């Protein structure tokens, strides 16, 4: 009898643990460079995001070659000259939702929190802390954030003759609609 109770408890814990996770594989990451000469933007709609509601862990992953530009020429430069995506094929963020205890993922509402952690891009890992908004509606968690990164912080060199074409402060917009993980 004790054995059966133990097994049921373990199954309940396992299901409980899974129920605490939310994810999307169709998250969107955009970047926007607003420089003197031109504006450049690119979008990647295949970002993966996972939130562990129990621990506050949050992770984003994206393949660099998946960014789509207005034209192929811009994409080639982005991949070959700046991001060196043959060598550094993905960018990741691993961090914590600081106000996780203030978010009820089961109740509709809008919750704000700092998200802090480590972002890896171009083979360089840096600590960042950004503002994020988590909107819970009908069981779907929308995660939104906007922040700026300096290419030079991640070892991305912009040659002098391109200084007027590429901003040294790139706007990153992150958006994902996360569903509860059901196994």
């Amino acid at each position, binding site marked *: 009898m004790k054995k059966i109770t133990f097994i049921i408890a373990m199954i309940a814990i396992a299901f409980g643990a899974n129920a605490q*996770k939310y994810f999307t594989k169709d998250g*969107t990451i955009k970047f926007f460079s607003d420089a003197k000469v031109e504006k450049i933007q690119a979008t990647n709609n*295949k970002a993966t995001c996972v939130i562990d509601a129990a621990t506050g862990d949050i*992770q984003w*992953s994206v*393949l660099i070659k998946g960014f789509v530009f207005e034209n192929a*020429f811009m994409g080639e430069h982005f991949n070959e000259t700046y991001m060196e*995506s043959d060598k550094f*094929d*993905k960018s990741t963020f691993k961090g914590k939702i600081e106000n996780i205890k203030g978010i009820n993922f089961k109740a509709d509402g809008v919750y704000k929190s700092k998200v802090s952690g480590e972002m890896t891009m171009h083979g360089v890992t840096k600590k960042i802390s950004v503002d994020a908004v988590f909107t819970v509606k009908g069981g779907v968690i929308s995660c939104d954030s906007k922040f700026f990164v300096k290419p030079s912080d991640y070892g991305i060199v912009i040659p002098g003759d391109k200084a007027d074409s590429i901003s040294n402060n790139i706007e990153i917009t992150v958006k994902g609609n996360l569903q509860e993980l059901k196994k």
Partner: protein
Amino acid sequence: MIALAIALLAGAYVWFFVINKSHHTAADDEALVKLTSQALYLEFKGDEKATFAKYKDQIIQVSGELSEIKLDASGDTELVLNTEDPMAHVIVTLKKGDHAANAKTGTTIEIKGICNGFLYEELLETSDVLLNQGVLVEKTKE
């Protein structure tokens, strides 16, 4: 006068064929390799770095069971192919404007796409090979 004409022609060439060139899609060329979704996944799982070096930016033709059809945030159609591992998939985003209207989930399809790489998500324990600019090759019957 001739110099001006040459300069204009050169400018037009750069604009049309370099700066404004359209995106390369899987419809433009033959595939480098034809394989199943399972074989592609196993190659990445076995040696991600070497497999990425081999297939990055290349057109790959993949066959597999279609498990899901959906639209991404830009309205592009995305086809998800199963592998033998329920936690691993090959995800192909079709080139803009293609919708694979005849593709049906549960059937085996063949599709070409340009390889972007492999994502393993440790919190989910899922693996995905991502291809974009894809085109449906054919649909075989159930």
